[in-house]
């Protein structure tokens, strides 16, 4: 009897396998709008159906009916904004998940691919992936509150709305060092700082990967600043196509510490009572810990060839989000107002720069944008997207792993 059943089983198996293998990898490359997608866009008034002006009363009413909004965010400050949102719109529950950029992006990608609809608001950085992978593949939809259109420069609201510009900088412990202990990124490759620079592994941090890509884009400046730092022309190793690659290589040779998070790195630098504190490459916005008195550090803005690198943090509605109206309300809330506003409050700190023009107030202790602009570069998403993998491979290959 078993013998008779066996061929049947084999046939079954083969059948299952055929389905399994044939059904793999649905195409993600700039797909045509599906029917459900079109329906959703129409209902949510997004994409091609965006109205010229938003009727906020109607949106709010619809949002209340939805009753909930789920935010996937890379910022540990989001829960605070969620709290103020809940206070402002009682009845709309916020589930704000603070996950780190890489996590947010991979979750949204997987969910869209799996057609699981849970998240509403996308709130994270990593410009190359967002602009060149997610937006073209219609995983995210742009939503710019109509009253803000005139207030935000086009490149900061297209193809996806930027909530703020963050800043990657080098920080140092100001209790030990009264003045910046370094003047150049090249100083980080010197023996003096061996094992004493904290950075989140670019393998785990899109921000830092983009930072390196920006360095590579401006490799010439690295060549000239080398001369300033060492007093001689740079000689490139065979495997280094330009000075920025050489910097990455030398930097990795100097045993940087791969912090679990920017928070860890900041705490390593800024804790009081240290004798030999390290440096760290983190978000300028961590400076808020200095304002609360938790840590003591300063930002080294006058290092060569660049003092800071701006990067974009985006807000978008996730494709076929279950609560699109609440998502819109949340996006408007997070954009704040010209005095900061309750929704933007957690980011109304030194180091974070709102994108709207004509701000009436500035955070206490902040370096004005106009000043910082002269010392900073901005991440070029296109360049980072094209060169990211090469830089990552170079990084991994030169990382002194054990």
């Amino acid at each position, binding site marked *: 009897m078993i013998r008779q059943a066996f061929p049947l089983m084999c046939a079954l198996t083969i059948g299952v396998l055929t389905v*399994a293998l044939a059904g*793999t990898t649905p195409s993600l*490359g700039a797909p045509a709008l599906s029917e459900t997608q079109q329906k959703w866009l129409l209902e949510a008034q997004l994409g091609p159906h965006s109205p010229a002006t938003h009727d906020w009363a109607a949106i709010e009413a619809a949002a209340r009916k939805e009753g909930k909004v789920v935010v996937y965010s890379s910022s540990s400050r989001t829960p605070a904004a969620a709290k103020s949102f809940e206070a402002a719109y009682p009845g709309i529950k916020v*589930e704000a998940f603070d996950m780190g950029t*890489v996590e947010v992006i991979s979750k949204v990608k997987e969910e869209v691919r*799996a057609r699981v609809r849970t998240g509403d608001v996308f709130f994270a950085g990593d410009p190359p992936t967002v602009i060149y992978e997610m937006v073209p593949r219609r995983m995210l939809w742009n939503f710019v509150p109509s009253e803000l259109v005139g207030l935000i420069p086009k490149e900061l609201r297209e193809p996806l709305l930027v909530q703020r510009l963050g800043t990657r900088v080098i920080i140092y412990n100001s209790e030990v060092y009264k003045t910046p202990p370094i003047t150049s990124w090249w100083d980080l490759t010197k023996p003096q700082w061996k*094992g004493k620079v904290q950075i989140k592994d670019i*393998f785990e941090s899109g921000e830092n990967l983009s930072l390196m890509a920006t360095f590579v884009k401006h490799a010439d400046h690295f060549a000239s600043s080398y001369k300033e730092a060492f007093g001689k022309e740079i000689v490139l190793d065979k495997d280094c196509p330009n000075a920025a690659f050489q910097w990455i290589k030398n930097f990795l040779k100097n045993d940087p510490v791969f912090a679990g998070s920017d928070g860890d790195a900041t705490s390593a630098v800024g804790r009081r009572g240290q004798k030999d504190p390290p440096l760290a490459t983190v978000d300028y916005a961590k400076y808020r810990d200095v304002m609360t008195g938790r840590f003591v550090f300063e930002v080294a803005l006058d290092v060569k060839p660049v003092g800071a690198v701006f990067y974009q943090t985006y807000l978008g509605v996730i494709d076929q989000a279950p609560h699109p109206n609440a998502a819109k309300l949340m996006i408007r809330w997070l954009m704040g107002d010209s005095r900061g506003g309750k929704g933007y409050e957690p980011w109304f700190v030194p180091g974070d720069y709102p994108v709207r023009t004509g701000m009436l107030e500035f955070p206490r202790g902040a370096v004005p944008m106009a000043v910082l602009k002269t010392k900073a570069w901005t991440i070029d998403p296109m360049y980072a997207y094209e060169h990211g993998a090469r830089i990552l*491979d170079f990084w991994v290959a030169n990382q002194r792993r054990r």
Partner: protein
Amino acid sequence: MSALHPHLRRLWRAITTPRILLSLVLCALLIYLVGVPLLRIAWATITWHPEDARVARGFEEGALTMFHWKRTFLGTVSNELVYRPFLNTVVTSAGATLLALLIGCPLAWLLTRTDLPGRRLLGGLITIPFILPSWTIALAWLVFFRNSRLGGAGGLFEYLTGVATPNWLAYGPVPIVIAMGLHYYAFTFILVSGALASVDSHLEESGEILGANRWKILKKITLPLVLPAILSAFILTFSRSLGTFGTPIFLGRPVGYYTLATTLYNNLRMGFKASAYILAVVLVVLSALTIYGNQRLIGTRKSFVTISGRGLRVRLTPLRGWRYPLLILVLAFVLVCVVVPLLLLVWQSLMLEETNYSLGNLSLHYWISEGGNRRYAEGEAGLLRSWLVLGAAKNSIALSVITAGLVGLLGLLLGYAIVKGRGTRLSRALEQISFLPYLVPSIAFGAVYIAMFASPLGPIPALYGTFALLVLVCVAKNLPFSSRTGVSSMLQVGQELEEAAVVAGASWTARFRRIIVPLTLSGFVAGFLLTFISTIRDLSLIILLVTPSTRVLPSLIFRYNEQGFTQFANGIVIILVALSLAGQWLIRKIGKKEATQ
């Protein structure tokens, strides 16, 4: 009546025999849960993915390619991507396994073959690490040994001694081996003491009569008898530690020490799926080879240890003057690897300012505050008020209870189908497939399930991000154990007990409900308990599959740790341990009540 009829009737009867029908259904289920995912992940390593746009140009999605294998094994990054992690994995796993054996075997001997006082109680205490999350010790290690490399000041060790913890002691292979060894020794202990307990003292006494001294008896008789069990314990522990994720990521990352499991995780997170899947395949192959080797090497010798259950006499070796010194040593060991780590975690969760060890710094802030003070953890509310923690706790409990229930039931069904079909090919096939998940290291299993359920497959919707997927992966991973317990409890139910019911006219469902289930209840409870324990604390298996809404306590611990909110992370470990213990107590109580009825 045509000539075809009897044939069809016979075939129909063969297929609709409950055992055969059940076996076929279970086979299909297992193939779907284990076989298809494995094939799909292998397939995914030889096709193009949309994410590959970052590393290559001009390809067609879904088309076949060897690009990923070449990049992984022959490319510029292959050293860091696969070879070094491979080496690190083997080194840490082997080290941890050796340590586990060095601790587990003597303990097993002391507790089963000597007159050490309080053996029963000690046996309970010694196996506690087995029910704790495997990375508890890793986190406690960080509290104690961390140095300024990670976030400012050092740990308790530095505070107490004033000596900076060297890197090799704080992070990397040494602490990983120690932390994993101190967890897995409990596993070794259980396996080896089982074998030792079944060695008949008559065998040893025969040696004694022939004039061998105690040491010689241990060396020439006892040890060879349990050697297969020890070798087996080595292999099983080794293959288990291969896929461990928590400990290596907590202790390895600060110094860039990556294993296959952590490299896999990083690759998947950065969207390098194909590389991640290849690493998963490497892990599966490594683990499968190890276990295959085990079976080849000692499969035949296993028969040495005869568990007859009858006429077994165990004579305890007198320790004489060593009784109390050894007792103190064992107690001290339990203290160091169970009590101290938990106390360290409790203490740390009460420290308002991280790394300030003065008593004045102790506070319940991270447990009960309403939040709002940006200075501490970005103003997040305390653990007991946090909706995140509450949701995760609910998910954890739901996941482990549902999984344990399903696994227990499946185990019974599998046990039934395997035992009743003993000797048939179907039964063998079933037994072998249900063992397959054992070959797949936990983290690789997670990766396999992403590949499998990321997109819809035929009529089955994509399960990514759903709670069902977590249940599914936990059920599948626990199947080998549950089918084992199912088989052994089914073997205890004589075939004739069921046949008597057949003759009495009971249908299959009536038999299962009224005869089989009541008689195997204790086995079911034991299996339930085991699955509950291993599921509620699991990180390696689910880390790749959790999403914010399906978060569980271990994934939250990982997240908080990554974020640097260590007080939260360590506090949740305590909550998790408390929940696990409470759950076990409750299950045992209910199980006992049911069994006596």
